[in-house]
């Protein structure tokens, strides 16, 4: 595979008025890797995803996808370039069936089709992949929390992406419901899809990530091997506060 990283950001930043939500994020994700992005609430994780997907335009820095500068490109341009995403707050299209929700992504994806019947058939395959087989005719409003998150996942997969941005697809799921999602991420990775996982569930991040990036107050705190990063005192401090770290040092 090519040496050009699927995603590279250079000094990426976004200011909202007086608030610097993300600043100076520079790193790259090689093809086929899973990058976990963690950080406490308000660290800028979702803003970071929005900057890459084009839903928010950066005020500083650049976004390169497959080596191509797509800084400030519209969200649909980035989607057609092979970048799919999920939303932290699920956004199903009500008034369409679950199958039709997924079919929309197939119709408009980078190698999309114009034939509705073909798209609906392909949608069924994607639904099966994420574990929603048999629920295609339902309206999305009738899905459980876990299934609604799977639908979000399925819509992103419908684009047949090269880069997949998962914004808390496991939030609010029970432990037994998390395992299938992790399994799906591993399957997609094996298929060569590059994945960025934003997640609060540490166990999930550890289980699938090749690299971890820690955001804190909009900046990169550290990055690298998942286990090393998670035992880094600075990371623990960012999550649990200064005093917790001191007390722990005192214990040992």
């Amino acid at each position: 595979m090519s040496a050009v990283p699927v995603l590279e950001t250079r000094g990426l930043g976004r200011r909202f008025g007086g608030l610097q939500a993300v600043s100076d994020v520079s790193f790259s994700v090689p093809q086929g890797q899973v990058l976990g992005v963690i950080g406490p609430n308000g660290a800028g994780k979702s803003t970071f995803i929005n900057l890459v997907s084009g839903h928010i335009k950066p005020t500083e820095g650049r976004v390169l996808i497959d080596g191509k500068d797509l800084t400030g490109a519209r969200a649909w341009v980035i989607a057609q370039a092979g970048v799919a995403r999920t939303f932290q707050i699920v956004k199903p299209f009500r008034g369409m069936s679950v199958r039709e929700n997924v079919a929309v992504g197939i119709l408009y994806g980078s190698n999309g089709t114009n034939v509705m019947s073909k798209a609906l058939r392909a949608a069924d395959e994607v639904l099966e992949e994420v574990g929603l087989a048999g629920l295609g005719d339902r309206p999305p409003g009738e899905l459980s929390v876990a299934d609604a998150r799977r639908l979000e996942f399925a819509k992103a997969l419908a684009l047949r992406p090269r880069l997949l941005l998962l914004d808390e697809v496991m939030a609010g799921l029970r432990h037994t419901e998390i395992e299938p999602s992790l399994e799906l991420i591993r399957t997609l990775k094996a298929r060569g899809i590059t994945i960025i996982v934003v997640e609060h569930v540490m166990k999930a991040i550890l289980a699938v990530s090749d690299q971890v990036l820690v955001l804190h107050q909009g900046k990169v705190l550290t990055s690298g091997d998942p286990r090393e990063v998670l035992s880094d005192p600075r990371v623990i401090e960012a999550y649990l506060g200064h005093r917790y770290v001191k007390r722990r040092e005192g214990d040992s």
Partner: protein
Amino acid sequence: MPTRTQVPQKGVTSTVRRDQARRLRPWALGLVALLAALGLQGQLYSGQERTVATIFMFVALAEAWNLIGGFAGYASFGQVVFFGVGGYFTAVAMSHWHFSFWVSLLLSGVIAALFATLIGIPLLRLKGHYFAIATLGVAEGMREVVTNMTDLTGGGAGITVPTVGNNATTAYLGNDGFYLLFLGLAALSVLIAGLVARNKFGYALRAINQDEDAAAALGINTTRTKVLAFALSGFITGLVGASYAFQQVTIFPERLFDVDITVLMIIMVVIGGSGTVLGPLLGAVALQFLSEFLRQNFTNLHTFILGAIIIVAVILLPQGAVNYVREARRTKEYSLLANVRKYRL
């Protein structure tokens, strides 16, 4: 929340055949309705023929509004501007430039579509109430522009399309001709809505209606899609306006840019079921028929009764008749009270 039940898989071929039948049924029904409307013509007195032609006109207008207001969810409160632009273009082209009606008609549609594109590019960035107010402003403003272009439009005194003598470019169509013309426009609008609803474009519009960020995340060029829907809606409305101008012979800005026409389109779509093909059709027929019936039988009270009926319909069926029937058939919950509760904010 209903529990998940596994639906038994049916035979693939029978499912395909049933799907095909289900897909062809609306087209067959449409054809039957068209033939019935043609057959009906011979049975009507000239007054009734005019009334039914007006029903057809509103079917086309409601279907056109539904493209942008129903499918895309952008409630245009200035839709009458395309009606007025189309009507005035035809009147001016026929009386000043001696164009035939048929050429004027087509150009009116094209110009209304171009106008929709022009105002759609900035205005479709606005959402909800802001879009509604902005479009309303455009329509009100355009009426003033047309009123003040006295040389071309005759201003408040109106403009008359030459229908008799040497200046007449196209002979007046008469009741029979306008019946067929408006029937044709109604059929065209339903056909367009039917095609839109079933293809890629319609799905993109519905996705935009629900969530534009999510639509863009799936690769939909949201701006282009919305502007295209607005232009298509403007095109049909312009055609209808042009036909109306010819039918009326003399037209005035107050009538051609009357906000009541927009309001009627919206009510018809909302009562019938917005975002559906059948809804605007049924809404236009029902409301226009009812209005005419009440006018003839309760001359003094007819607007009051009509208003009361609209209020009751909107309270009981906020999602519109067609959407109510679809949901009720799916969930087997036919109670209107349950429906009111479901949609109560």
